[in-house]
């Protein structure tokens, strides 16, 4: 599984490393068993909730994962107030104002991987046209039965 995290870099790095190392520890302590995506999401939310009334993590998260047990992928949306919901498609930040309507219209059950990536590319294009900030470099990742891999989109400033 993989997490997209948004927020100030301090909390972002601290929280996501803490979570991912906890998952690694779980796997090591339990004979290689991995937590299901739902369990991972709930663990994450629990950590956000525990810290909320002490020193909150200001991170918004999209967690996506593939479970071999159910042979299906799932997506979870979490915000800095420790809300959690399972979604078919989602967005965090300003992107949601632009992208959710595109996804509302184009999403259907049983999309193939390529169709889904196309919708994501449509969303990115919409942001490039309509969003105030000029963000030229996006990174698309896919999570499936073979794990997590990158599908790049957009110019990498390092190439110029």
């Amino acid at each position, binding site marked *: 599984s993989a997490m997209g995290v948004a927020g100030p870099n301090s909390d972002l790095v601290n929280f996501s490393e803490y979570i991912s190392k906890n998952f690694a520890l779980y796997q090591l302590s*339990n*004979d290689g*068993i991995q*937590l*299901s995506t*739902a*369990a991972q999401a*709930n*663990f994450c939310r*629990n950590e956000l909730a525990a810290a909320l009334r002490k020193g909150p993590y200001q991170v918004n998260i999209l967690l996506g994962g593939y479970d071999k*047990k159910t042979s299906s992928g799932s997506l979870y949306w979490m915000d800095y107030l420790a809300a959690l919901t399972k979604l078919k498609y989602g967005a965090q930040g300003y992107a949601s104002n632009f992208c959710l309507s595109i996804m509302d219209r184009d999403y259907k059950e049983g999309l193939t991987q390529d169709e889904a990536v196309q919708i994501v590319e449509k969303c990115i294009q919409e942001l490039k046209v309509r969003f105030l900030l000029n963000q030229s470099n996006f990174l698309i990742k896919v999570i499936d039965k073979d794990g997590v891999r990158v599908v790049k989109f957009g110019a990498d400033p390092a190439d110029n």
Partner: protein
Amino acid sequence: MGDSAYSFSLTTFNRTGKLLQIEYALNAVANGRTSLGICAKDGVVIATDKKLASTLVDTEQVRKVENITDGAGFVYSGVGPDYRVLVRKARKSSQSYYLTYREPQPVSQLVKGTASVMQEYTQSGGVRPFGVSLLVAGTDADGTPRLYQVDPSGAYFGWKATAIGKNYVNAKNFLERRYQEDMELEDAIHTALLTLREGFEGEMTSQNIEVGVVSTTDGVFRRLTPEQIQDYLDEAS
């Protein structure tokens, strides 16, 4: 425990390298009423002899086979009150797991946690080891049926079939002869009852034994009712 006058462990090594308190705890287990378990390919069965001090005791109120999670259960041989403490701790820790992960705790982790608790009591100040061995039945994260034994030392073992308590040697020999790799749950229940009857003092009825079963079809651990036990006993005779 650390700030009392007993901040030293009562379980200490002797000259030959043994922890006598654990040995003695195992003796307490071996004096307890027989319990056994069999792991079939589609489920697990655990059973125990519930013979009580007097016929006046209300056997329905005595519970030796207990649910810990929906999918796992314990049975024991040894000191009953010690068992109740372990059941309570195990139930609490598996609910805590559910709180964090919103998923039931896999049996293997439940066993590790309980074994860890039992080990603590062999290395902490002012406490004695638990006088029970547990048999844990459940289905693991991937749905495989599993049977575990946990000893007073905190050691745990996965078994295909095993027996603990009084007469465990004969019971285990009996199981060794009867056990088959591809046994089905119904056969396992019959074999368990036969094994229990082997060393039973007096007549075995649905009132003086307890049986717990978990099947891979629904992954739910259930205590059999006296009526269900009676049906199995009737089939066996």
